[in-house]
């Protein structure tokens, strides 16, 4: 059969090809098949592409997408038990295809809805006309845990409460789209939508190129420009406020910060000074005027909102009162996510817009009203009943939402009684039936329920809707299993036009004014983490070098009690490394510390660097389980050394020489200086065992250089000369100090009008001492002092830049 025939067959359901056996479920619309069972036009093109590739080709392509996600380190955090674990992003490889005309309905419906939500939240925190007019029951606000009284009456500095919203949509049995939920607190997932797109197009680049798929970049560019525009009015910066690396979607916060060029900030990076929000940077306090908030509002201020918040900024509410900061979305906007509000959306639309909702909301009854309560009780077998003030979507909420039809008689009666006693705390909602779309399982396409997450952003020209988003795909035919936390998957959404679409990128366009961020925007916390990342990476390297030298000798001499071996163990003990283990716990914890420091600043260096570090940790842990001391460990250390060099190389060759790189470099140099001075002191002491000097050269990676530079056996002095005082040996202490001086002088405030900072003076003094010193001055006592002096430099840097 030739290719052309295959393509023809693919269009016919039931014929050979991937769609074979893919059928409509009774009463449920499908995204790929029309009601008549025929493949919809956009899908036909996709299927033709799939069939051309064949099952093997397709699997290979999908593996490319997964490989991309692994390489990019895309993860989300899954909560199971106490500690969240990082999970690979569950990409459903088959994109969801939506026709442009269908999409147009979604777009105009959501623009209307975003406008409605803005008016609603402005009324709740403003004049309360809706309550006075009898449209919105006061209990829904007054009893609502998301109603934040400290911000009542504060007008947002930007003039608007909402700037970025997400909507969860499902297609009902009638074929139309329904809104299942509004996300206004801190909607997540837009960054994952981008990553989905990149991964999917890696896999299906040729098919993607043939179809006219709307691009996502324009949406992000417009929103970025809108936030920059707001910030410029107040002469401040834009930051993304994240709860930190333990958050479920921290990866996404870092990703968007990197993609849009915003600072990634945590609560402790900020301080409110005289009513203004400032970021602690290495160049002092700098004003921030727009914060894109990715943490729940009540956590942003431990003083006025949640006293138990440990991730907030005291005084944030004060800054809001002063009108000096625009928070996106405004503090308090989360109230719109309240489930019971869904019951009032049709009335609210009439009251606030004078028009009916273009996209209907899932049918909802608030049981605080007698008639509605009775309706829910009478129809309990056709209801999902759940908490009125919950902000969790009913379809994601198995813990507190009950399906009336699934209850036994006794609990059903108990539920009826609770509705009678305390109706105000409950809503009834129509159970959701969702449309199905194909997923690729074991070489075939199978239908699964889907919901659609769509994003809206405010720009100076009004609301704009991301042409795409992501679809959440159930793991079974059960609609309730759709949440990512429960094993669902996410698919890219292709909005397909029949005409060519505009190609956009975030790069500056011709004629666009070039804006540069200043180097002084590095938050102090990030700088601190960079220093520690540099230090831990270097500490790992130093430890691995010593361990390799030790294990090589152990393998050769096979008597662990020989003086050189026991002496090295004593030294390693002093730096908390127990050499009786092939992979000592001290080394593993240094690697963990490096990964930990890096994980807090993922927006600051490349995915490749992160991946190299993660790979190092994985390898070390594997080794720890099976490697034996001696020859085995020697080879393991060589592998680790190579991986460490890989990480350093990626960072050194690829990281832009901004303030961030300088701090990383300073960390490396500080640690290397301390480590080399330390081991040199130990191995050149008078009672050091035989073989100590050879070992020192090996650890200092200077065997060849020593042979070349000192052709006569010159005694301990030549070793000290090479490893401490040689300005050209990249492993000598003096070399580290010289590098430190260069970086320190270039830090903000390092040299001002020819005047040196305290730190710059200290490093110059140290450098000068070393440059004029003779090898015989470098006694073990002096070397111990040298370690302490380098340590003091670290303290001076911390005082100057991190406090």
């Amino acid at each position, binding site marked *: 059969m030739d290719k052309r025939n295959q393509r023809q067959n693919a269009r016919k359901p039931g014929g050979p090809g991937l769609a074979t056996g893919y059928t409509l479920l009774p009463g449920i619309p499908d995204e790929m098949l029309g009601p008549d069972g025929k493949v919809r036009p956009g899908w036909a093109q996709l299927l033709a592409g799939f069939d051309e590739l064949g099952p093997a080709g397709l699997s290979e392509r999908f593996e490319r997408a997964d490989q991309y996600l692994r390489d990019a380190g895309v993860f989300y955090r899954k909560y199971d038990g106490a500690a969240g674990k990082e999970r690979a992003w569950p990409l459903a490889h088959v994109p969801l295809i939506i026709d442009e005309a269908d999409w147009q309905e979604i777009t105009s419906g959501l623009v209307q809805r975003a406008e409605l939500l803005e008016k609603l939240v402005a009324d709740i925190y403003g004049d*309360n006309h809706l309550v006075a007019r009898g449209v919105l029951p*006061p*209990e829904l606000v007054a009893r609502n845990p998301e109603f934040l009284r400290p911000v009542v009456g504060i007008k947002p500095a930007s003039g608007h409460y909402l700037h970025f919203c997400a909507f969860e949509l499902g297609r009902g049995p009638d074929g139309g789209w329904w809104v299942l939920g509004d996300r206004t607190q801190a909607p997540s997932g837009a960054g994952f939508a981008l990553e989905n797109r990149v991964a999917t197009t890696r896999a299906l680049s040729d098919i993607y190129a043939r179809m006219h798929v709307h691009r996502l970049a324009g949406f992000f560019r417009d929103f970025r420009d809108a936030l920059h525009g707001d910030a410029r009015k107040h002469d401040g910066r834009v930051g993304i406020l994240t709860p930190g690396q333990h958050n479920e979607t921290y990866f996404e916060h870092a990703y968007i910060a990197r993609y849009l060029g915003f600072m990634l900030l945590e609560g402790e990076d900020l301080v*409110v000074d005289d009513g203004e929000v400032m970021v602690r940077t290495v160049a002092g306090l700098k004003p921030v005027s727009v914060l894109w908030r990715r943490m729940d509002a009540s956590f942003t201020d431990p*003083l006025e909102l949640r006293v138990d918040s440990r991730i907030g900024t005291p005084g944030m509410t004060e800054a809001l009162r002063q009108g000096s900061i625009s928070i996106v979305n405004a503090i308090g906007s989360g109230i719109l996510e309240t489930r019971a509000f869904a019951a009032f959306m049709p009335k609210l639309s009439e009251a606030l817009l004078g028009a009916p909702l273009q996209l209907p909301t899932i049918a909802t009854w608030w049981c605080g009203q007698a008639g509605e309560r009775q309706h829910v009780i009478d129809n309990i077998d056709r209801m999902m009943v759940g908490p009125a003030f919950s902000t969790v979507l009913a379809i994601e909420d198995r813990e507190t939402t009950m399906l009336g039809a699934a209850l036994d008689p006794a609990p059903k009666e108990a539920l009826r009684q609770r509705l009678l006693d305390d109706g105000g705390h409950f809503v009834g909602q129509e159970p959701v039936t969702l449309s199905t779309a194909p997923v690729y399982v074991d070489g075939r396409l199978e239908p699964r329920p889907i919901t659609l997450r769509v994003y809206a952003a405010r720009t100076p020209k009004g609301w704009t809707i991301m042409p795409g988003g992501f679809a959440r795909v159930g793991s079974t035919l059960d609609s309730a299993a759709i949440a990512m936390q429960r094993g669902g998957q996410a698919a890219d959404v292709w909005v397909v036009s029949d005409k060519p679409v505009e190609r956009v990128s975030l790069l500056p366009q011709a004629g666009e004014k070039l804006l540069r961020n200043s180097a002084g925007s590095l938050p102090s916390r990030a700088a601190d983490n960079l220093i520690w990342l540099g230090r831990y990476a270097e500490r790992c390297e130093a430890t691995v070098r010593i361990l390799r030298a030790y294990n090589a000798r152990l393998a050769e001499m096979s008597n662990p009690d020989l003086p050189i071996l026991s002496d090295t163990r004593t030294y390693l003990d002093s730096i908390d490394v127990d050499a009786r283990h092939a992979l000592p716990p001290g080394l593993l914890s240094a690697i963990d510390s490096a990964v930990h420091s890096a994980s807090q600043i993922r927006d600051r260096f490349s995915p490749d660097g992160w991946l190299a570090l993660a790979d190092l940790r994985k390898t070390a842990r594997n080794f720890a389980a099976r490697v034996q001391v001696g020859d085995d460990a020697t080879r393991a250390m060589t592998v680790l050394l190579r991986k460490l060099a890989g990480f350093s190389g990626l960072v050194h060759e690829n990281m832009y020489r901004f303030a961030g790189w300088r701090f990383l470099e300073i960390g490396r140099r500080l640690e290397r200086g301390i480590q080399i001075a330390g081991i040199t002191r130990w191995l050149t002491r008078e009672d050091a065992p035989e073989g100590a000097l050879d070992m020192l050269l090996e650890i200092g990676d200077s065997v060849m250089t020593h042979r070349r530079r000192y052709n006569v056996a010159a005694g301990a002095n030549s070793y000290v000369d090479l490893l401490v005082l040689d300005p050209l040996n990249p492993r000598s202490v003096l070399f580290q100090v010289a590098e430190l001086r260069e970086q320190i002088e270039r830090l903000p405030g390092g040299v001002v009008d020819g005047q040196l900072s305290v730190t710059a003076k200290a490093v110059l003094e140290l450098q000068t001492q070393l440059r004029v010193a003779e090898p015989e001055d470098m006694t073990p006592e002096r070397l111990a002092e040298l370690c302490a002096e380098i340590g003091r430099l670290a303290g001076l840097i911390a005082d100057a830049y991190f406090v």
Partner: protein
Amino acid sequence: MLYDIRLELHYDYEGFVHGDRHLVRVAPASIPGVQRVIASSISFDPKPDTETNFVDFFGNLVTTISYAHYHDSLNVRLTARVGVEDDHPPADFSPDLAGLQRELSTLWTLDANSPHHFLATSPRIAFSRPITDYARQSVRRTTSVRAAAMDFCLSIHRDFKYEQDSTDVNTSPLDAFHLKKGVCQDFAHVMIAGLRGVGIPAAYVSGFLRTIPPKGKARLEGADAMHAWVRVWCGIHDGWLEFDPTNAMLAGADHITIGHGRDYADISPIVGVLRTSGGHDAKQSVDVIRVE
């Protein structure tokens, strides 16, 4: 009645602190028909680097202070002269509980004074079955909301022992309920939890209480105390009335109000965020002196 009030809050820190920020709610506000503030001033030592004032959602006066420089103590001093009305509460025209629910459902307002704000759980008050059942006994024994509130106020006074240091500032209403003892804050929290549990709006009031020395003894300096009691919404006609479960009485001319909120968290005298690992030592002294 006219009172001169002096309050001093003093904190000694273990070591020096800086970068701290505090909200202070100690200044009495004028309340029409209840009290009139003639003069009031608040001062801090050391002098804060920033000091701003605002009125919070419930109408309370708040001062925000912050320190950039290092200090090892904080002293807050309030002096105020307040006139308190000494009128007797009118006769009870409050509805029964079902009537109260009907009246509530006709109140379409979110004003700060709206009873709707005082029906739900709040930061320090969760609903708990035992306390609700306890309050329900008072409802059963009476025929009006106001009588139920007074019955509940007297029950708490009878069943709970006032004991300094038996609880701390973070004790939950349920813990105090099981202990059957506590201080004014616990008495007030238990009463609020019970009333809300049965559907009666209740608020937490913070203020000062004049203490009258035993016969023949002189008044001791600083011996008066900050105090807490409960505001109960008794229907549209009777409105908000104040009950003092610690002293088994309606709040009257000896009660000087600072302000109110849903519970202690909304009106605590001082909330602060300190970046310090050490603890601190707190002292408080209050004088309420009758001027005329």
